[in-house]
């Protein structure tokens, strides 16, 4: 009951003009970054991270949630209009949406994408709010050996989810773990890997890694891909003329898609969101494949299936709610965006865990409310207000865009700690991430390895010191045994008995 009241209070906080303004601003930023091919909501939140040092925690979290939700939806805009997914999670939408666009039904496709995103996003946020207290209670039952097995489970899933690039996923994850070991040891007051430099004794901050991996590497990557003028051609933009009245999906079309498709895709997306490192593209793909498998008209898939758009967009937006569960309860991010939101929490002195929900719901509840309102109100509102100009919005010259990103990223990494060293580190990690990306190593795994590495080491060593070095503690502790069994099941189904559709997700990994 208290939690419900706190949630309602969160909605009241969101109604404050300043907080509301941050949410709307976040939504617009997320829509822009989500819609522009090459930019993602992850990059938007990464650029926002240093600025959160100068902001209150509530507006910062509200803004992050709005960016997350809008970025996930906005990928469908260019996916539909010009067949270039704004975000990897919109790959499936591009297949069906662009086919409809070519038939002159692009506006209708955008309408279905928005409706699916709205339903999935708002239901995902509701599930998050309803299940959060239960998750908090369940997490209290998990003891140190169980926490170790849970983090191990998360790290293994992050690696095996790469499917056709498991070795590269492992390398990227271990690089993250190794970078995290720099600095003071987790159990003993001794420095490790500082190479005689005082600057490394305190370890490496999460921020230069985030800025380098997602912002600097993006600028380098775009410079690498630059073949003259990168502006989306105006002829393409002009041909994508869209009228507002065409956005509304008809009742007959919604009935044909069926409420079951929306609900099942929501649950699939939410469940996939809970898994660490999996993300929106997997959610969209699984829901799309499931909808196709049980569709009454599978022949339409590939030629403009509204059902396919609805399934994919519902799932990738409901993933947003699911991704917050492991991050808030265990500090295990469900996807790269929540990994950066975790950074915002840590910067503001908030530690993830069940106590966060007990003692600081007033700070977290507005973020939940922002997720819900962004999905339910802002997605359809944005489509209605900005829809006809979507393609023109994303036709901003890339030279101008990437110069702005570089300045925000570098000045941002300076202002966080007023340190030139942080700027240099951001550049260094940017170069590393650029080369990793260029050779299809998943850079997200590097960040997740960096976040989870210290937890893994700490829980492992604590468990062993509490059990006099007996490793059997991981098998005799029921919670630990549960996660190890779950790990074995995942390894069996995802790495040993590979599903037939393997490969698609690997190709879309950023």
């Amino acid at each position: 009951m208290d939690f419900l009241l706190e949630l309602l209070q969160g909605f009241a906080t969101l109604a404050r003009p300043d907080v509301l303004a941050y949410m709307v601003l976040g939504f617009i930023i997320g829509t822009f970054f989500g819609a522009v091919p090459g930019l993602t909501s992850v990059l938007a939140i990464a650029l926002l991270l240093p600025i959160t040092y100068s902001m209150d925690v509530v507006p910062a979290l509200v803004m992050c949630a709005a960016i997350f939700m809008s970025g996930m939806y906005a990928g469908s805009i260019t996916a539909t209009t010009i067949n270039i997914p704004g975000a990897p999670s919109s790959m499936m939408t591009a297949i069906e949406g662009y086919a409809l666009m070519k038939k002159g039904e692009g506006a209708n496709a955008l309408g279905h994408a928005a409706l699916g995103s709205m339903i999935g996003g708002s239901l995902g946020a509701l599930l998050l709010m309803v299940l959060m207290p239960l998750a908090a209670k369940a997490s209290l039952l998990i003891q140190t050996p169980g926490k170790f097995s849970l983090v191990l489970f998360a790290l293994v899933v992050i690696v095996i989810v790469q499917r056709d690039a498991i070795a590269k996923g492992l390398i990227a994850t271990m690089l993250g773990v190794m970078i995290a070991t720099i600095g003071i040891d987790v159990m003993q007051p001794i420095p490790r890997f500082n190479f005689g430099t005082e600057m490394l004794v305190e370890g490496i901050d999460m921020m230069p890694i985030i800025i380098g991996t997602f912002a600097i590497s993006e600028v380098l990557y775009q410079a690498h891909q630059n073949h003259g003028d990168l502006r989306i051609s105006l002829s393409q933009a002009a041909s994508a003329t869209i009228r507002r009245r065409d956005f509304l999906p008809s009742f007959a079309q919604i009935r044909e898609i069926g409420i079951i498709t929306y609900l099942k895709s929501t649950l699939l997306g939410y469940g996939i969101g809970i898994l660490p490192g999996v993300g929106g593209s997997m959610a969209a793909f699984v829901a799309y494949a499931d909808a196709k498998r049980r569709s009454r008209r599978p022949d339409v898939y590939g030629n403009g299936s509204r059902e396919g758009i609805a399934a994919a967009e519902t799932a990738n937006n409901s993933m947003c709610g699911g991704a917050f569960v492991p991050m808030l309860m265990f500090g295990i991010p469900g996807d790269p965006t929540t990994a950066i939101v975790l950074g915002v929490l840590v910067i503001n002195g908030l530690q993830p865990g069940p106590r966060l929900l007990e003692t600081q719901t007033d700070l977290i509840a507005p973020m939940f409310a922002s997720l819900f309102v962004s999905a339910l109100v802002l997605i359809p509102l944005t489509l209605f207000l900005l829809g006809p100009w979507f393609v023109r919005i994303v036709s901003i010259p890339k030279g101008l865009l990437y110069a702005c990103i570089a300045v925000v990223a570098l000045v941002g990494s300076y202002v966080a700690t007023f340190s030139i060293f942080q700027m240099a580190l951001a550049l260094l990690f940017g170069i590393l991430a650029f080369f990793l990306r260029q050779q299809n190593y998943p850079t997200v795994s590097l960040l997740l390895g960096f976040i989870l590495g210290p937890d893994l080491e700490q829980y492992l060593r604590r468990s062993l010191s509490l059990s006099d070095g007996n490793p059997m503690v991981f098998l005799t502790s029921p919670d630990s045994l549960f996660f190890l069994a779950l790990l074995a099941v995942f390894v069996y189904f995802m790495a040993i008995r590979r599903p037939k559709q393997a490969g698609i997700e690997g190709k879309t990994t950023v």
Partner: protein
Amino acid sequence: MVMREMRWRKRLLLPLFLLVLTTIYVVATFRITPQFSEGLVGPRFLPLLAALLTYAALVHVIRRELASDDESGKGAFWQPVAVVLATAAYIALFKPFGYSLATLLYVYALFHIFHYQQGRPLRRLLYAIAVTAVFYGLFALVFGIRLPTLLDII
């Protein structure tokens, strides 16, 4: 044939670099001196395990790269290098030149690298001034952050 050989050699550079990096890391692991014994799983355990897994994965990747005909990784070479050099210079000059001048030069250099407003130096300069001013407004005026200045003026 020669081109193909060059391509896989290029693809091997990153795994080989990571191999060297991991080896430096392993050497540093043996320099860790624990204050008290924790048995097998002490301050060296996870770093060594991570390095071991990285070695195994790198060997696998190198073997696959040698057998592969993949021609991915095409793109401009000098542009990312130019971005890195411009960024390194920006970082080095950020404090001595102050935010305004360093950022103006950096943005102008990036415009040049990305061919923005090519052949229109004046417009390019005006856009660079505008970008510098907008982000000065964001950081210094909106968020009240003190940015470095040149001779305490700009």
